[in-house]
């Protein structure tokens, strides 16, 4: 398929911090999403590069979560194209998107409350399971081997996120900050190419935010996972991300490095409020 000549299609890109990030892995082209008469997203284009941390910010109701839902395949935009790994993605179900290597966490925690942490993390492996229903119920041969492999991956994630002590604890008994971490664990267990985080720090105290930031950076660093995140905490966004997309009322009003975005007058006005002298 022919690829559009977007401004810099070079294979790699060096950020302000001197981090080298890879070529474009996902591209949103002129996306418009409508709910009846309401235009949640108006003609937005941006790209996500391999190995980067890409933030989407904006005031409440700017359309950030809708954008994330478009990426994860939950919403199908009325106009525009989603390009993933160099090919245009046809409209597909969220589970198909997940199978393609895109995992996500939710703004309102969506875990299985009655199940243990380990079982929740294991559900992150479901899209990768290949053995059939019969094999899995008999737990023989391939199903057994698969379970062992999946458990191994789940355990590595548990170790990575330091939640060994709550491995067997039912999720319902955990505090909020830990639940968020378990959600991240479940998403990571899918070994995603792109990880979508919907407000990973919402409702956290400073210490929990610091922990979460460290885990996000570590995931990006250790596994080379591309991360797209929505976040309200400006400090966190500016520290974590390589590039930032700013949305306001469904429009894109800024795109660039944290430094550029911070100094963009339109962004300051829209997001931080207009200064009154």
């Amino acid at each position, binding site marked *: 398929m022919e690829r559009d000549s977007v401004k810099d299609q070079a294979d790699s890109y060096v950020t302000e911090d001197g981090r080298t990030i890879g070529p474009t892995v996902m591209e949103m082209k002129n996306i418009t999403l409508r709910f009846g008469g309401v235009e949640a997203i108006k003609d937005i284009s941006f790209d996500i590069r391999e190995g980067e941390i890409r933030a989407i910010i904006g005031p409440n109701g700017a359309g950030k979560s809708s954008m994330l839902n478009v990426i994860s395949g939950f919403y199908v935009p009325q106009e525009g194209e989603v390009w993933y790994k160099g090919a245009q993605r046809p409209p597909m179900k969220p589970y198909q998107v997940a199978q393609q290597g895109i995992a996500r966490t939710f703004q309102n925690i969506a875990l299985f409350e009655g199940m243990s942490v380990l079982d929740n993390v294991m559900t992150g492996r479901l899209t990768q399971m290949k053995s059939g229903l019969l094999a899995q119920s008999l737990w023989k041969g391939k199903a057994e081997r698969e379970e062992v492999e999946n*458990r191994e991956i789940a*355990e590595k994630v*548990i*170790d*990575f996120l330091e939640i*060994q*002590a709550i491995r067997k604890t039912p999720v319902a008994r955990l505090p909020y900050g830990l639940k968020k971490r378990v959600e991240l664990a479940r998403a990571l267990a899918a070994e995603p190419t792109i990880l979508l985080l919907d407000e990973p720090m919402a409702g956290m105290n400073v210490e929990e935010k610091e922990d979460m930031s460290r885990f996000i950076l*570590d995931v990006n*660093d*250790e596994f080379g996972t591309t991360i797209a995140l929505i976040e309200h905490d400006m400090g966190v966004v500016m520290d974590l991300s390589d590039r930032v997309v700013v949305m306001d009322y469904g429009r894109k009003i800024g795109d660039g490095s944290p430094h550029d975005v911070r100094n963009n007058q339109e962004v300051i006005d829209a997001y931080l409020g207009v200064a009154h002298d």
Partner: protein
Amino acid sequence: MAKPLTRADGPQSVPALLHRNASEFANAPAYREKEYGIWQSWTWSQTRDEVEALALGFLELGLDEGDFVAVIGRNRPYLYWAMMAAQMAGAIPVPLYQDANAEEMAYVMGHCGARIAVVGDQEQVDKIIEVQAQLPDFERMIYLDPRGLRKYDHSKLDQYSAVQELGRANREKHIAELEARQAKLNYDSTGVMLYTSGTTGKPKGVVLSNRNVIETAKSSSEFDNLKRNDEILAYLPMAWVGDFIFSVGQALWTGFCTNCPENADTMHVDLREIGPTYYFAPPRVFETQLTSVMIRMEDASRFKKWLFDTFMAHARKVGPAVLDGKKVSFMDRAKYALGELMIYGPLKNTLGFSRVRVGYTAGEAIGPEIFDFYRSLGINLKQLYGQTEATVFITAQPDGEVRSDTVGVTCPGVELKIADNGEVFYRSPGVFVEYYKNPESTADTKDAEGWVATGDAGFIEEGSGHLRIIDRAKDVGQMADGRLFAPKYVENKLKFFPNILEAVVFGNQRNECTAFINIDLTAVGNWAERNNIGYASYQELARHPQVMDTIQSHVEEVNRSVAEDEMLSGCQVHRFVVLHKELDADDGELTRTRKVRRKIIEEKYADIITALYDGSKQVSTETEVTYEDGRKGSIKATLEIRDAAVQPTSHKMAAE
């Protein structure tokens, strides 16, 4: 096999013991660690191979005989091996407290001039990088967990497994040298160097010889009849002498298996899974466990609570006697057996103590109630008294002679004497060689005949021959009217209340005693929750009037108990204050082993002490605090000062 290492009179060094075990118990488990949810184990022969590979790697990196190797991290088999590998290569291992901050680490590493550091993870790597400019002798760092370190400058940094690979690849080149170095090791060569936490001044490096380590391991293993199939859980700081003796000394001597938890938070789960037969914990751990059991029983159904209370009352009555094998009536025995089935057994299982054959507590005095609780369940918990300079063991309680108020009889090979001022002295094969680069302190502590001053005041009880410790000798003072002042004695009594975490008593050269008190946030917080008392912070809870009332009643109860002892009745607490912050090792108020640093506290809180003695009802104060990451902040508070009722003392009456 390098046979010349084993002499006719038995192995004389840590590596020699390792070689002995590798050939004698080759396939028995030596070390275990839980990783990725599964217990991984290494046999003695595998352990020897791992250690040897690392030692060869050390040689390839240029480690010389007599060099120091710092070992920093949580308890992991790899770090124990690093200590053994250092000795194999003729170097001296120096384990450090993993929670020490960068400056503390810089002092110790600079003092011994460590050339190589073997560390657990990124946190430790960062600390050393921060201070390495101050360490002229320091050359390389070897890390275990590569997470977060991929982009670090690796010119001075190697992964543990890479060093082992390096060792294996260069085996032919160095093996002869490695064997020659091991052959040179004997009873007099240094086995390990441990830094004491030091209640005053800078930490001191205690040099322990192979003789100290092996003789102590041997006699203490015999004392408690430790066997090859025993299991221990290694979770106490590696820099502490006890852990070295249990997880390296005794483990090598008897050949039992050392288990390492998955991480610090999983300790209780791991304890339950392993079910150690030989267990060691400071009183604080037993206290925390008892508190959590009691808190959970508060929430149990009425029937369960009744069952628990009934059988626990019975256990307190006959449990210790059953444990000591004394005469107990048939009915009592039957009821105890029923209790074992319904309460004690399941409870011990939950706590991970089902298989404990020998359990020790030491380091601090343990509350009689806590002590009796565990013993009444049928857990053979005993007390021992020791210190780094003695390679742990000075006295210990033999089976059948266990009491909460003594620390036992002298261990095999130990001699004891009490000086005129009450200070306890000992002499044993475990007595340390010297304080590294500190001959004055060595001479102050150890005399020409080998007697070592413990710094503790105590006496030997008539009849039983058990040693009883009153207090630190230097803390024992006199009140203005000449009465004996023993702060620790009173503090311990205060700390036996679950609501009180820490207490500091003042009164030396004064007319009356006063105290600082820290509440225990778990116990008091739980009480607050059950009584619908809202609080936002430690500070707020600490100054709640009802909390103050409770603490006051505890203080008055202690006063009544102190008044009974004629010698110490002057130490009753007249006035007290509940502090607005927890005393913390990060602020220098406690040592890393959580002992109170009186001088520092007296200087830091001088304003509060003044208020305690000038009769004011409250005091406003501002305190500097250090956060875990080294940043500083300050806390402002207004504290209420309370008067506590005191008992008239018989001593005074006699004097009048």
